[in-house]
């Protein structure tokens, strides 16, 4: 009985809430279905509690010259709000010890602080610059920040096979006018709700980038994570390969490991 309740009731709850609150007018079926996909993706990641991983970005320019960025990323699930995350850079070596603390919110602007190790200074920064490049890479800040359902509106496009499973193709439009995109097309599988691909369209509506997810692993808590994320910029010919390693869940982390004191201690 308990199992029955926990599985079915929330789904009904979510659907009825949407139809009651989100749209006053009768929503189109493409909107409802698109939103339903987004909810499923979001719910599939519920209960990850926290995650610690190493990330390495390899940036490649048009001439094929490479440079790398390495960092440790810690994230904490926060109930009824966006996630908290702490990113600590270890390379290039001149930015070693620089750390970035972010509290994501669904609709309010995110709270962000930067720690500058040379001055031992914690600096509050504006989260408005979401469309700018993250560490000179092809990933924008908004591409790597926590993906809350409320940050987009959705339109279902079609069914398509994704990552070998029956999947969905959905168009999502960022709510924030500061976003660098007019829309994104997402490919997601309909079983584990994993991203297969995302296409990004710039402010002029032209295709800008595509992000391909690869090499998924399932962890002991049931969560799936891709080890490889390849971002290609179609307009500049540049690319960034993001490789995740040493992914760990359920670490001994609390909110105190995601505050300004922790930012100063971060290594």
């Amino acid at each position, binding site marked *: 009985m308990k199992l029955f309740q926990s599985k079915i009731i929330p789904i009904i709850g979510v659907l009825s809430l949407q139809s009651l609150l989100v749209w006053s007018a009768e929503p189109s079926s493409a909107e409802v279905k698109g939103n339903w996909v987004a909810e499923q993706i979001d719910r599939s990641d519920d209960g990850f509690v926290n995650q610690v991983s190493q990330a390495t970005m390899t940036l490649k320019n048009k001439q094929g010259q490479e440079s790398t960025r390495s960092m440790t990323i810690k994230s904490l699930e926060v109930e009824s709000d966006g996630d908290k995350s702490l990113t600590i850079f270890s390379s290039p*070596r001149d930015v070693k010890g620089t750390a970035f603390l972010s509290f994501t919110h669904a609709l309010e602007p995110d709270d962000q602080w930067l720690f500058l190790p040379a001055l031992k*200074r914690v600096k*509050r920064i504006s989260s408005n610059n979401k469309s*700018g490049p993250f560490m*000179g890479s092809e990933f924008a800040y908004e591409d790597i920040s926590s993906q809350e359902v409320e940050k987009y509106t959705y339109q279902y496009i079609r069914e398509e096979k994704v990552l070998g499973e029956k999947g969905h193709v959905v168009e999502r439009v960022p709510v924030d006018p500061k976003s660098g995109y007019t829309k994104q097309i997402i490919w997601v599988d309909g079983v584990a709700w994993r991203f297969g691909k995302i296409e990004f369209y710039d402010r002029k509506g032209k295709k800008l980038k595509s992000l391909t997810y690869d090499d998924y692993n399932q962890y002991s808590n049931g969560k799936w994570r891709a080890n490889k994320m390849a971002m290609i910029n179609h307009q500049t010919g540049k690319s960034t390969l993001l490789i995740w390693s040493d992914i760990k869940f359920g670490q001994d982390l609390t909110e105190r490991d995601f505050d*300004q004191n922790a930012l100063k201690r971060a290594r």
Partner: protein
Amino acid sequence: MKRLPKPFLGFLGLFLSPLLVAVDRGGEFSGELSFEARSYLERGAYGNTGLGDFSIILQPEYAVAWEEDRKVVSFEPFIRFSSLDDERTHGDIRELSFVGSWDLFELRIGISKVFWGVTESQHLVDVINQTDLVESPDGEDKLGQPMVNFVYVNEYGNFEFFILPYFRERTFSGYDGRFRTNLVVDGESPIYLHGDEESHIDGAIRWSHYLGGLDWAISYFEGTDREPTLKANLIGTKLVPVYGQSKQASLELQYVVGDWLLKSEVLSKDSDQNGNYWAMVAGFEYTFANYYQGMDVGVLYEYLYDDRGESSGSGLDDASFVGSRIALNDEKSLEFLVGGIVEHETGKLSNAFLESSRRINENWKWTIEGSFFAKPKSGSFLEKIKRDDYLQGSLSYFW
């Protein structure tokens, strides 16, 4: 080269044991080695006629962290060899500390650095660490300060307590050095107005918190004034720093709204030598984010005020700072920073600076920097060092 004084070394000894524990755990060795060439555009006015200063700077760091970085021991010595100025050739222990975090509190103990403040043109309220003035005339470099820093953390923010058991004397240029007036400051034989001299135990408390886009901090400090007055000795051959006692309360405010950062620092200070006065810095930073192909263009304005007026000696008692920061956000992190200060009384630019840096590869980076004095107010300190304009290039290796 200056020696570290004895009580200071004793204090160091106290922290050698955690360091040994740390070494046993195995940590990370990193650091920075820089080669710096500075060229002054004119010969100095006070016999300090050397035009070039070639420096080598080494700042290694050994750090051990455990329990998800809740406990960190770090050691960071610093040394500079300067070809121009014997006093600029100096060493320091920037960091030799243990920091621990527990559920509701944090403890930092040892030699460390603490930054207070939000503005860019002046760090008015930043009082814990002494300025390592020979490093740079902008005063941003600091000497390691022995401290016990206790932080109580709850839903109302951070409540901090500082005990600062040993005072660090400011560094000053020697005879061949720049940024000095006609008499050399003998930084090694200061006068203290309090009988406890450098062993006076200073203290501070601070409350900091944030709500939405607003960050604030209220602090109180009591102890040896970090800023000495300079007094000529009896025979008028040199200047001697005089350190008095001081009390100061300060407020920092920063509000983030859209692309705007609104900032303000207010200081109210009562010192043995300067009496009661207040000063402030207030302004904004606006960023044209992702202005062109990922490039950020920031515009900064800050108003500087000091209640002492001209007697503050800084020439910044009623002035405006205007600056711009341009970051290309490319793979080499090319950046430019330019700024200047206009004094309202004269309506003229008193000084200006520029800085640019770019990464070469994973480990190397170059930086160029320039500092220029234009038309500082007559009688101000800046006017006396007017001939010390310089251009500097440096190449740094990070590991």
